[in-house]
């Protein structure tokens, strides 16, 4: 199926426990993500999804197992973009100022970064908010800004930890389409964590189902449907059912 060279991020047999934690969190998790692809992780609350993302971006070092980027075993710290689960916009910076953060940390020229940020803001419908502070923005707008900031990191792989979960249903559906649009246009590799099975099926190439803690991979489901996908179509409902069945199967044992 996938050629070896097309795999951009690969996690092999990852084991992890927090210091002092009696039960391990990750018990041999494997993950392969193709360049330009979209893999979504679903799993019960507290199973270790955030922990897995933190291992993938080098914030946590696995006890066993390897992280490979483009086939090379490396320390992924600083090489993979990560959007934390909770709001991490700097409240003292405007939306535009927040978008300049990655360039500032990396020491890229400010003028160029500014131009790039402004063009993304207007391309994705946020130019009216460039000079607003996060405190003045709605939850949905804040997440849009944080997502654009993640795309501005110039990393190939983006790890998104439940970016839409804190939003109301209407905003969430709206942002789901918006996020698919920005991904299709900017073309990056995405690993998304979500609790929402419909979101997983509508957005991704593959859904990876994790067991409850300690996390193992219960199953992978390819979603071979053309985008944009209708969340109410019979095909998506069938796949949703399969993901749910896989999740339930894991909680029996």
């Amino acid at each position, binding site marked *: 199926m996938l050629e070896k060279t097309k795999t951009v991020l690969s996690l092999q047999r990852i084991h992890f426990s927090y210091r002092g934690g009696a039960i391990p969190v990750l018990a041999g998790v494997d993950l392969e993500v193709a360049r330009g692809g979209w893999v979504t992780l679903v799993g019960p609350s507290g199973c270790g999804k955030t922990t897995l993302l933190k291992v993938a971006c080098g914030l946590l070092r696995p006890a066993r197992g390897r992280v490979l980027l483009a086939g090379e075993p490396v320390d992924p710290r*600083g090489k993979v973009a990560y959007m934390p*689960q909770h709001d991490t916009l700097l409240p003292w910076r405007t939306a535009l100022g927040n978008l300049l953060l990655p360039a500032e*940390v990396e020491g890229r020229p400010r003028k160029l970064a500014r131009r790039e940020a402004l063009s993304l803001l207007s391309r994705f419908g946020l130019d009216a908010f460039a000079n607003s*502070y996060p405190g003045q923005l709605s939850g949905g707008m804040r997440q849009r800004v944080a997502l654009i900031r993640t795309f501005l990191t110039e990393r190939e792989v983006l790890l998104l930890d439940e970016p839409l979960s804190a939003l109301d249903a209407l905003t969430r559906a709206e942002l789901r389409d918006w996020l698919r649009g920005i991904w299709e246009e900017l073309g990056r590799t995405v690993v998304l964590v979500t609790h929402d099975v419909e979101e997983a099926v509508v957005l991704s190439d593959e859904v990876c189902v994790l067991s409850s803690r300690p996390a193992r991979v219960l199953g992978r489901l390819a979603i071979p449907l053309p985008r944009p996908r209708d969340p109410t179509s019979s095909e998506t409902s069938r796949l949703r059912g399969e993901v749910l069945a896989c999740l339930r199967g894991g909680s029996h044992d």
Partner: protein
Amino acid sequence: MTKGWNLRGSAISLALLALLWEVGVRVGGVPPYILPAPSRIFNTFLAELPLLFSHAGTTMAEVVLGLFLGSAGGMGVALTLFYLPSVGRALYPLILGLQVTPVFAIAPLLVLWLGYGIWPKVAVAALISFFPIAVNVTDGLRSVGEEMVDLLRTLGAREGKTFRLVRLPASLPFLFSGLKVASTLSLVGATIGEWIGAQHGLGYLMLHANALLRVDLVFAAILTLTLLGLALFGGVALLERRFLRWRKEGKNS
């Protein structure tokens, strides 16, 4: 902050109080060397303006220098507590001990050691302003969430950059809260330092005038001190408004 005050109400109640005082003194025939009428105090204030101004200059210099040194020391201690917790834990009882010892009890010693010039008063003002700054800035440094630091790390930032881009700006509101408390306290500290031994300054002027039974001049000096305190507080509040514009604007929506 000042917007919350009812300026007209304050002015009216102040005027009423002055009127009551004026009438009480005149009708009761209280001699001016016990309690001068407000009109008399105000006349003295105007007549002795150059004298008051010159003494206020000395007191203000002591306060500003003390505030500056106290803030520098307080921030240094906060940084130590944050970055070198083991050193901090060793120092903490010492700092706390220094704080619970009334600075005014040490003031005579300071005069003994540092002479009759401005330095013992600067020292009192510094010692008294140091604690609120240290406590507030420590809280400020600790206010930065784990996820924010994680984000900076995945962008490739080391602690130096994280400090400059996140911890320092996050501490600013806390620093200003500390400065507001410290600025008023240090004025009290400098005045009391001047009571203990001085050749110049508003505290010295008060003692001197008291000895000459010039109670009107004592009150004029108190009035000057009040105005100084208000100016200091106002100055800090103004700086705060200038630096923390995002807080105000953030709440508008």
